[in-house]
């Protein structure tokens, strides 16, 4: 799934910051999903907040390495893992 598609799907969630973490709750039209809530840690929260209409994975990687004490390889892996997680979340 491309990053712009993920950006468009962000509107299907309501987010709230609690401490360093972010809670995501899906907007849903059925009762089955109503207890599904997701918690993003500080890194995942940062990636989520940096998914914009125009961002690329490279932009996010740069922002991540500038803001956290991690190298490019770790940042790439974190982004890849998180985007895969989001994809799974969105296609449920």
């Amino acid at each position, binding site marked *: 799934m491309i990053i712009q598609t993920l950006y468009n799907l962000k509107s299907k969630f309501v987010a709230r910051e*609690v401490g360093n973490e972010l809670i995501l709750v899906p907007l849903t039209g*059925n009762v089955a999903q109503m*207890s599904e809530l997701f918690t993003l840690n500080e890194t995942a929260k940062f990636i989520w907040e940096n998914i914009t209409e125009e961002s690329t994975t490279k932009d996010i990687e740069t922002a991540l390495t500038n803001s956290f004490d991690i190298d490019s390889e770790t940042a790439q892996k974190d982004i890849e893992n998180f985007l895969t997680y989001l994809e799974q979340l969105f296609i449920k």
Partner: protein
Amino acid sequence: MKQQSNSLNLQIAGYLIRLSSDSPIELELGYEPFITSKTAIADVNINCYAGIPANLFQNDQLVFEAKNEEQRFYSIYRTGTDLGFIIYNQQDKDQIQQVAVLDETFSHWKVYSETQSNNKILPLKYPLGPIIMHYLTLKGDAVMMHASCAFDGTKARIFTGFSGAGKSTMSKIWNNAGSLIINDDRLIIRKQKTGYMVYNTPMYYADQPKSALLSSIHLISHSPENKTKKLSGATAVTRSMAFCIQNNFEKQFIQSRLQFFSELCLQIPVYDLGFVPDQSVINFIIANETGETK
């Protein structure tokens, strides 16, 4: 069930609910102890009508369905600025039991029910009664939860978890030890000036209105040994919010719930509790309430 007049007031969780109709109103047994003579301005007015209009909401957008493979509880439609509800018969999911309309202020309901053989209408027939209470909580700082609550005279503890986690078992254990059970299935928590209050709501059986000041929330599961861990931050919020009653088709509903639980979890401790279903859990909880992992 008991015959009632065409107009009556209920007080549930401190909310005043006024029902009125041109037809005689009947209530399920559990509502009778909540009837009040109080006549302040009602928090919600319910106009009840005999007969269900045909073809309501046909051109409206379906926004939410509460159903599973076995049962169909209700469907919600957006009808202009109002919400329209179709409530299904719990014995026959293809039969409409009631139709209801809630205005955008969440203060006025119109409830349409078929007249029963005794010429009365039953406007709060399950599940519409709890649905009305749920939307009442969305008006203010309150939530409705699937949980039990025991008050030992000093502290009121909420026990919640998935179906079969032991909410009723926990209630029996505390009840046998002399605690007051506020309820063992459905509660309303309200933020009041004095703190977070827990209230029971009408059930299928008669029980007096009860309330207590909330001390702690325990997310329970059966376990070979008693063990507890205090939760904090986002984990405490998401784990406890998962057991509140929600219709998450509107962003504002979710935002309101997230705000409520974020504030509540800052003031009320939330514990993950694995328990052995016997009296030993009582002393274990009391001993570990300040608690880290044990």
